[in-house]
């Protein structure tokens, strides 16, 4: 039920990434080194953060540089908004159910 951004920050490894990015952009390699994780596990975490809008990826030569997306973190502050989105989706589901159940 939790909105993406909460899921994204619920993981300790991803919080380490965000914490590090508070100090400035880092390359994928730097972040992987920080995490004591395999390259593929680290890149999965980065993908989750990217999809949640918490980090932005920039290709620089053969490196990928990650930036903190502060606006995404603002959304963590505006957490109530996530529940609004959540309920809007649930209302859609309710409407579909009622349409299905409608006696024809």
């Amino acid at each position, binding site marked *: 039920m939790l909105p993406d951004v909460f899921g994204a920050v619920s993981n300790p490894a991803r*919080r380490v990434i965000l*914490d590090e990015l508070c100090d400035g952009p880092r390359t994928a390699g730097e972040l992987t080194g920080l995490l004591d994780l395999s390259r593929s596990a680290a890149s999965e975490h980065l993908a989750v953060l990217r999809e949640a809008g918490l980090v932005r990826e920039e290709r620089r030569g053969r490196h990928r540089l990650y930036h903190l997306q*502060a606006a995404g973190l603002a959304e963590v502050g505006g957490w109530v908004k996530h529940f609004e989105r959540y309920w809007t989706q649930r209302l859609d589901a*309710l409407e579909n159910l009622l349409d299905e159940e409608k006696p024809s």
Partner: protein
Amino acid sequence: MTENTIRLERRLPHPTAAVWAALTTPDLLARWWAPGDIAPVVGHRFTMDMGAWGHQQCEVLAVEPGTLISFLFSEGQLDTTVTWRLEAVEDGTVLHLEHEGFRLDTPMGQQAFEGMGNGWPGLLSRIDGVLSGVS
């Protein structure tokens, strides 16, 4: 951050009786929201199975059959109140949702704000700094 109530409304081309059933019958509720043994009886305590978020304790606070049901949602975690109000209109029902009482000092509110867990001390204050830099 100041707004701690969600208000939504949805116009549904269905009679209020059908909408009421969908809100208060466990079988139907499970199909659009989550499994839970809700019953439109004041004082009825029930849990909603919110998946990864776990079972949330609820308690029915007010009922006007066919028109209104209000319940405490996520006791001890989110500590909020959900109220459904059904308004009969010519071509169906206008369903009003009010989800109120979001507070950052609840366990869930704090977790949400601080990052859904422990081990992230300091980031909260740092976020403020980062945000003031961009806004």
